[in-house]
């Protein structure tokens, strides 16, 4: 009974080298340096969180699709990416069930209930992070000091939760610490070096477009330059452009979260609007709200605006004229 597909004229090219699976594999490859950095700085607990998150993301997708009699799409690896990104958004001493609950929320609540891959209205990993953040604020804010090269955290460092580079009054980190990732924070967002490596790989492979990361980071840089007037100086603490660019979840957000195909605009101008919007909201939330970190909320907000942006930036087809009054058309 199904209606036949209406085929439009025009060349139809299909590149078999580009599939969801291949793109997701590229993203996983791009995330590997960050995973390695997370294990290097936060040891076994980071590895445990990543494994739990990925396995429960895959399990959630498989179980849901089996239960609802849908074709199982676990092999497209998108749930691996979601699980990994979610684990990157957890602090090192988060309990294992937090990763599992987060993955279930991301896959079932945000992705599958809205129709599965390609249908989610928000980035699943980020939305799950926001839910975890609002639900278990204490556990999610329990950042520990990194312990580079050690498998298990030293006893003293393990028990205390410490301030992240963005917490007010704790601005004593050097640029190299921020860049390499030797700072307290979520396991996957601290090492900017590893994230940038992955980001560049994705740009070279053309998995992601340059517009969103560049406009996102650029907007944040300009906003902070206008506010603080300094590019970088040690005395200014956190009040300079470079410090802000290198702290928090900005880099992982700009390269891996905001560029999600499903939840970002398709047109070039739309992508620029998305990046600028994310940057502005991140600046506003970081500076004027009680939340220390605005990256996830900024991206989630622009995720929701994406259909609107798409609607206003879609290109007019060549030779297209606005349909005039129906009476005239009938005559023609």
């Amino acid at each position, binding site marked *: 009974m199904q209606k036949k597909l209406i085929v439009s004229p025009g060349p139809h090219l299909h590149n078999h080298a580009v599939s969801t699976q291949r793109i997701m594999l590229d993203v996983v490859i791009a995330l590997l340096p960050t995973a390695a950095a997370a294990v290097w700085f936060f040891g076994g607990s980071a590895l445990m969180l990543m494994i739990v998150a990925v396995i429960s993301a895959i399990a959630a997708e498989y179980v849901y699709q089996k239960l609802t009699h849908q074709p199982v799409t676990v092999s497209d690896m998108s749930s691996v990416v979601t699980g990994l990104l979610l684990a990157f958004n957890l602090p090192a001493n988060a309990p294992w069930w937090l990763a599992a609950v987060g993955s279930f929320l991301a896959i079932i*609540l945000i992705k599958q*209930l809205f129709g599965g891959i390609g249908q989610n209205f928000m980035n699943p990993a980020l939305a799950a992070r926001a*839910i975890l953040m*609002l*639900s*278990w*604020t204490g*556990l999610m804010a329990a950042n520990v000091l990194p312990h580079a090269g050690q498998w298990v955290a030293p006893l003293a460092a393990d028990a205390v939760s410490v301030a992240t580079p963005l917490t007010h009054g704790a601005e004593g980190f050097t640029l190299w610490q921020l860049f390499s990732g030797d700072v307290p924070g979520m396991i996957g967002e601290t090492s900017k070096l590893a994230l940038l490596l992955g980001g560049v790989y994705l740009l070279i492979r053309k998995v992601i477009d340059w517009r969103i990361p560049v406009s996102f980071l650029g907007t944040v840089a300009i906003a902070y330059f206008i506010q603080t007037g300094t590019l970088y100086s040690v005395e200014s603490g956190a009040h300079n452009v470079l410090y802000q660019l290198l702290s928090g979840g900005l880099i992982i957000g700009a390269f891996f979260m905001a560029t999600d195909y499903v939840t970002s605009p398709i047109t070039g101008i739309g992508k620029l609007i998305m990046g600028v919007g994310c940057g502005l909201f991140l600046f506003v939330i970081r500076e004027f709200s009680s939340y220390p970190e605005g990256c996830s909320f900024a991206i989630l907000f622009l995720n929701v605006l994406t259909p609107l942006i798409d609607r206003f930036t879609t290109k007019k087809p060549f030779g297209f004229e606005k349909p005039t009054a129906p009476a005239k058309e009938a005559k023609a």
Partner: protein
Amino acid sequence: MKQKKSIGTVFKNGIFAENPTFRLVLGMCPTLAVSTAVFQGLGMGLATTFVLVFSNFVIALLRNIIPDKVRIPAFIVVIATFVTIVDLMLKAFIPSLSESLGIFIPLIVVNCIIFARAESFASKNSVLLSITDGLGMGLGFTLGISLLSACRELLGNGTLLGIQVMPESFQPMAIALRPPGGFIMLGILLIIINAAGKAIAKRKVMKAKEAEL
């Protein structure tokens, strides 16, 4: 129009087939706002039931007297009377509930379940049927809001009616008590109840087919 409605079907209609929370999706404002604890949800549901029964009763009595053009203001006067009674009664006898429900008690005046039943049922049916309908709808609403608040209290606080239910090691999920948690939980309950309703309807069809064979 069907004229023969038995009291039983009218009563059941409000609880199952046209449950105001899960089927008609009416009265969402109080449902989402006060369903953070079972005690509050139950209180809200019963207060609404009281108003619903009595407003249906009075409107059914007056249904041939109220002119069609001013029926909405007339309904509001009737409903507001009973809401005021509930408001003052709660303040006098259960001040703690009155305090926690706050503005949402006076807001029962504009609860769309009550309006819907007044407009679509009480103004067209006999007094006895209208009272039954009010009772059924009210209990259906109480059931819905209590179920929602039970889920939210259990997840968000680990308690039911203030009694610790979950084990000590349970870490409450704070978002369940916040507004987004209310929307998410309501959505999940709607999914479950609609799926269950569909499954039951399917089984009925299968049974009917079997009986035919």
